């Protein structure tokens, strides 16, 4: 099974940055994690609402398609990732118009939560903790989106996960 050591080997900044692992590896990805969807690997060729969001051509930039997907979930583009009461923000990592990753805010503690590839969920204090991963090809946060959330929304899974402290 993939260990957190395997993950840290490919995320060179994360090991030096404040973070906490909050799940075991599983076959859903960061896109599903935005909505706590533990069942699907959201990607145009794998699980995608093609009837409403056209599948982007292979090898062409696909960031706009992911933005459209998040818009279909109620998110709208916003200026930054600053914490604002009542708003849940997501940060999209991309390069040259190619989507690489998305992290979501954890408002109660003002950290971010990411499902890392096919590995673990973890929370990280800063967005740049995921920079410089070799296979992210220099991707950085290029877009922020936000939607309202209910005041009683529970963030326990993002904060402590299923792993005892």
């Amino acid at each position, binding site marked *: 099974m993939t260990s957190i050591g395997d993950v840290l080997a*490919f995320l060179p900044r994360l090991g030096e940055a404040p973070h906490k692992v909050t799940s075991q*590896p599983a*076959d859903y990805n960061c896109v599903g994690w935005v909505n706590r969807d533990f069942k*699907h690997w959201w*990607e145009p*060729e794998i*699980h995608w609402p093609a009837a409403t969001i056209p599948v982007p*051509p292979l090898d062409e930039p*696909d960031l706009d398609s992911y933005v459209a997907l998040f818009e279909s979930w109620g998110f709208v583009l916003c200026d930054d990732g600053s914490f604002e009461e009542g708003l849940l923000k997501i940060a999209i990592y991309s390069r040259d118009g190619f989507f690489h990753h998305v992290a979501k805010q954890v408002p109660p503690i003002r950290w971010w939560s990411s499902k890392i590839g*096919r590995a673990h969920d973890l929370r990280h204090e800063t967005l740049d903790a995921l920079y410089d991963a070799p296979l992210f090809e220099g991707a950085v946060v290029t877009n922020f989106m936000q939607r309202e959330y209910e005041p009683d929304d529970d963030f326990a899974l993002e904060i402590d996960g299923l792993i005892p402290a």
Partner: protein
Amino acid sequence: MSSAVLAPPLGALWLDEEEAEDSYFEPFVASSEADSASDEAASEPLLVQQEFDFWAEELAAESIVVSSTRRLRSHPAFVGILALGKPAVPYLLERLRTGEGRPVWLSLLGLLTELPPAAGAETIEDATKAWLRWEKTELVPASGPGATTP
């Protein structure tokens, strides 16, 4: 349906049932339709397996943090497995059985076979089961894991 190796049918792993009708039951023989380079490789299954294992180990390790298998299409190990052609299919199915890295192996299976046995599957788990059912019912094992010899 597209026939380009690197441009498979859209939604190759999860095609709509309607889109899948034409090709779902096409017989599949692991080596008969491979290109000349792959034919040569198929004649030496041990070498195919060794090369596959080399690339697969690298791909499994390095793809851990990747959230979209689309971002792997230029990775040397991904390209290396594609270059093996259809003789790599039995080994990809074996990888599916072992669990880790399933989105990557499913993506490669879709590209190499251009078949959608997982049409309509909702999850990685369901798609894996569909491909393994396909292996039992449609794949003619010419080499690799599961091959039989008289």
